[in-house]
Every structure is written in structure tokens, then in C-alpha cells.
């Protein structure tokens, strides 16, 4: 009876796809073509990419070779949120490689923090510059923190002249941590950025932009003094979103190198051969409509300088200190 009914299902349901390399390539190319959100700033002729790879990919190639070519195709987008996942490899685009190595944690500890700096929740922190400035290192937006963590930190540094929030090489994490952290730094009630989502197959088919707001933390813990946010090419995804948000806030400014971007929300899916992928399907813009997907430029440019380092100076921190102490 089950066999009979299963036969009925097969007659009605859609056919399963071929699992061949060419079918897998066509499916992936089409999904990117119809859903990827950042063709407008990537300067890639996606139709031409199809022509190139359609001539390379054939059904006799091995999985390894197919993966290599599909990964190269995806990497033409130069997007850290674009990945291909198989059971033997993960493709990625090394976005932080676009800029210089801009933080050396061992050097920073040796020359600024010492060995007895504080660790509160995910934050490493201490006074620097003759106890005038608070230094706060947040290495990943995937690390959660509590209001108790923030209460301790802000009480400790309430008499400082300013703060350095070091987000260099912070590769991102949870979006909620952006809003949580910003809620302690500002009472700004205007939109900090807008988000729209793909609504059709055309490269410019999006929903209407929706504003995103900060809700100021419901406590006395706000830190209203100047805050230098240190960034570099490794400041990616949620960290870039945080940097983007600071553009609307008067007491925060960016120091370092352009961020990596990655402002879209990556969505996943599966290919006919079972591999999975992800790429961004939302577009994030400033409230004025500017697209910073390729990176948010700093207000003050600074990268590590070997001559400075020989003298025990982190060029980026020194730049931030100079601005904070002379503001």
C-alpha cells in the first residue's frame, strides 16, 4: 500500500535535481545572481563570470576540482560573508588580507597594559596614558557581556578623560551586541543605519529601507566622554556595523584603517550535490543611503608603523591618544 502511495507522490511531486557538476554550478550561479545583495558595489560582471566558468566546468571533473572552481567563482565577489562548505573544505575570502596587520596583542600588552590588566567578561581593560584614558579591548562580538560587566567598567573609568575601544581584528558576531554596547555610549534617538532585503531576482530589487535605532541603556551607566574606536580591515561584519553606527554619534570616532565591510546578513542554502553555501541577502546603508559594504573609512587614518613599534609605540593607539588628550 505504501509503495502504491509513494508512486502517487512521485507522479505529483517535483523531480529531484541532477547532482552533476554542471547542475551544481548552474544552481549556485543562479542563486547568487537572484539573491546576492551587493552587486552594485562589487564591480563584478556576473553574466561574464557565468560564461567563464561554464566553459571550465564539466560533468567528468572530480569533487575537489569542482570545489576549487566554484570557490574561485564565489571569490570574485571579494566578500568575507561568501562561503562554500563541503565535507572536505570550506572556501573563504580573506578580507583582512586586504590591509596590513594592524594590531599586535603581545606588543600591546608589553608596552601599554602590562600583565595585570583587568579582564571583565569579554573585555580586557586598564588605564593607559598616565591613567587619563581607559583602554578597552573587545575581541569578538560573539562574546556576550552583562550589565554588571558594564557597570564595573564604567565605574572604574568614570573619571577618565576618554576611552579607547579597540575593535581591530574583531571579526564580528552577534548583532544584538552592537546595540547593547552602543546603548551605553549614546542617547542618540535617530536612525543609525537602514536595512533592506532582497525582494526579487533583479540585482536592484529590494524592500523599502527600514530604520534601525539604539535604545539607550536604562541605567546611570552611560559613558558620554569621547571614545576612539580602533578599526582595521579585520574589523568585519558586526564590527563594521558598529563602526557604521558610530558615524551618527557625536562622541565616537574611528581611528585606524578601513574596516572589512560585511554589512549584509549572510543566508545559507544547499546545492544539488549536497554542499552548502552562504552569501549576503540584505543591504545595509547609512541613513543618508551610502553603501559602505566595501569598508567604513576611519575618521583618522593610522596603521602600525615599524619605526614606531621599535620605540614601543602602537601607532594607532598613539593617534587615538593624541586626539583624545587634545580634543
Amino acid at each position, binding site marked *: 500500500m505504501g509503495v502504491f502511495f509513494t508512486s502517487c*507522490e512521485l507522479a505529483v511531486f517535483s523531480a529531484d535535481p541532477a547532482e552533476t557538476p554542471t547542475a551544481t554550478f548552474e544552481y549556485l550561479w543562479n542563486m547568487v545572481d537572484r539573491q546576492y545583495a551587493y552587486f552594485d558595489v562589487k564591480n563584478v560582471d556576473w553574466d561574464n563570470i557565468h560564461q567563464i566558468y561554464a566553459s571550465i566546468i564539466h560533468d567528468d571533473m572530480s569533487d575537489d576540482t569542482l570545489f576549487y572552481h566554484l570557490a574561485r567563482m564565489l571569490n570574485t565577489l571579494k566578500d568575507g560573508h561568501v562561503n562554500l562548505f563541503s565535507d572536505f573544505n570550506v572556501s573563504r575570502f580573506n578580507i583582512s588580507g586586504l590591509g596590513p596587520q594592524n594590531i599586535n596583542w603581545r606588543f600591546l600588552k608589553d608596552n601599554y597594559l602590562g600583565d595585570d590588566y583587568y579582564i571583565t567578561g569579554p573585555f580586557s581593560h586598564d588605564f593607559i596614558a598616565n591613567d587619563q584614558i581607559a583602554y578597552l579591548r573587545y575581541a569578538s562580538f560573539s562574546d556576550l557581556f552583562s550589565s554588571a560587566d558594564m557597570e564595573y567598567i564604567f565605574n572604574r573609568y568614570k573619571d577618565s578623560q576618554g576611552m579607547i575601544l579597540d575593535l581591530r581584528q574583531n571579526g564580528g558576531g552577534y548583532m544584538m551586541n552592537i546595540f547593547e554596547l552602543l546603548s551605553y555610549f549614546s542617547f542618540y534617538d535617530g536612525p543609525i543605519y537602514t536595512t533592506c532585503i532582497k525582494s526579487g531576482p533583479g540585482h536592484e530589487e529590494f524592500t523599502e529601507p527600514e530604520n534601525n535605532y539604539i535604545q539607550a541603556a536604562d541605567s546611570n551607566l552611560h559613558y558620554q566622554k569621547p571614545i576612539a574606536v580602533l578599526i582595521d580591515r579585520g574589523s568585519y561584519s558586526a564590527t563594521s556595523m558598529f563602526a557604521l553606527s558610530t558615524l551618527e554619534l557625536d562622541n565616537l570616532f574611528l581611528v585606524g584603517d578601513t574596516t572589512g565591510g560585511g554589512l549584509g546578513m549572510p543566508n545559507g542554502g544547499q546545492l544539488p550535490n549536497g554542499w552548502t553555501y552562504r552569501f549576503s541577502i540584505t543591504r545595509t546603508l547609512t541613513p543618508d543611503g551610502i553603501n559602505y559594504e566595501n569598508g567604513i573609512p576611519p575618521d583618522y587614518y593610522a596603521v602600525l608603523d615599524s619605526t614606531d613599534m621599535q620605540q614601543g609605540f602602537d601607532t594607532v593607539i598613539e593617534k587615538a591618544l593624541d586626539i583624545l588628550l587634545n580634543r
Partner: protein
Amino acid sequence: MKNKPILILLSMILPLLILAGQNPDKFLYMNTAMGYGHVKDSGTSPLRYHGLSGGANSGYIHHSSTHNFEILGSVSSISGLVQEHILNYLSTAMDFSYTHSLPVNLSDNTQLNAGAELYTSMNFLINPSYQNAAFNLDFLIKLALRAEIQHKITIQAQTFHLAGIKFNIKEQSYSPFCRIDIPVLIFNGRPKYAYVSDSDLDFFNRHYFLGGFDLKTQLGIKKHLKNGNLMELSYIWRMGSTGKRDIYLFEHGSHDLAFSLYFKLN
């Protein structure tokens, strides 16, 4: 129309009120099922996931010689596998049905019922491999025609000897039955174009449309116990598709063997 929810509620309760004075059998119903199922959501994958299906439901059944009314709550799932990826399809549903005996004289022991079913469900799709599309929520409201035929067989008490041993078989009653739900109207809530669920965008902002099909067939046999309770063994076949109006076609099918108990309440 402001009174619409009240009217819908009344239309659901009305069959109960009609039956109240007819000395019917009232049952607490419990069911568990397990079998094979498959599911395919084109929004995230062109592949069909095959695996185990199962479920349980429970509720109240009001049965008389002329009417049958059921209110059931259910959970069911299909867990499918493709390579190392696991897709879980979890459905929670409320099911209201009313059927009436047709004046067709098949035989004294045969009852042919026809009526309608209102089925509402919230369905979850979970596959961690899909990143921000790892979790999805679908809605389905279905109005279906229900037809069922049931024939009561009574085996008289008998005594016989086998190898010198005396066997007494008591009188037993069974009711083979067949039931089919044919959809008339299906209201679907499915993801919009970008198929995203984990976002600050409105979670319930779905693509709503009428269409598709959702067919359910049940074949089984009930055993009438002395105390008025019933035991039931049945095969349930269900297949559904959201159809061409969905941005991304969703299909599922399952073949379950179900065991049910009816506890008489009066």
C-alpha cells in the same frame, strides 16, 4: 467584519451543541504514529530529505450513529538526512472536524459519513547548515472535505478443541475503516523572497497565499473492547505541496503506522 472571530468560534461549537442531546459516545483519544517521511523546501535546497516520521495527537471525540465530531491537537515531525545535514520538520496543529451519516443504506453495520475538517498548523523547519535560514516558520490553514466509511464486524463466541485442549473465544467486534480528507481551500504563510528568518525584520511578515494541496488518507481497524473503549491500528498517508503560488515550492509526504486508544468518557 468585527464579529467574524465569534462566528467562527460558534460554528466550531455548534456541532457539539447539536450533539449534546443525542446520547452519543464520548471518547478521550490518544494516538502515536511512526514511519517514513520526506520533505523538500526549495527555498533552501533543491534536495529532498528522507528519513523518519512520527507524531502524536490527542483530543476529544464525540461519536453517535448519526454524527461524529472531533477536536484534536497534534505534533508531528519528519527528520530527514542528506549527507551530514539534518532537516527537522516539526508541525503543531489543531484539527476540528464534523461528519454526518449519509442516508445511504449499504448495510446495517456500515456507516458512511461525510463532512468537513478545519485544520490549522504552525510548522517549523530547522537545519543548522543554512546559517540565517536555519530556522523557518510556516503557517497553514486548511478546509477539507472528509469522507469515511466504517463497517462493524462481530465474531460470535465459540469453543473448539485443539490437541486435546479446549479453547474459548469470546465475542469480539472489529470495525475496519477508511477515511480521506480532500482539501478544498488552503491558506499558506511561507517565507518571502529572500527566505530569511533570523533577523530584526518582522518575523511574521510572511508571503500569504491560497493554493496547494494537502491530502490525508487513513486505513485501519478498530477493536471494540468490553468496557466500551477502543483500540485502533491504522496506516496514515499524507502528502502536501504549497503549489505554484509559493515563491519556493514546499513538499512533504509521510507513511505512518499508527496505534490509537479511545477511552470512553460516559
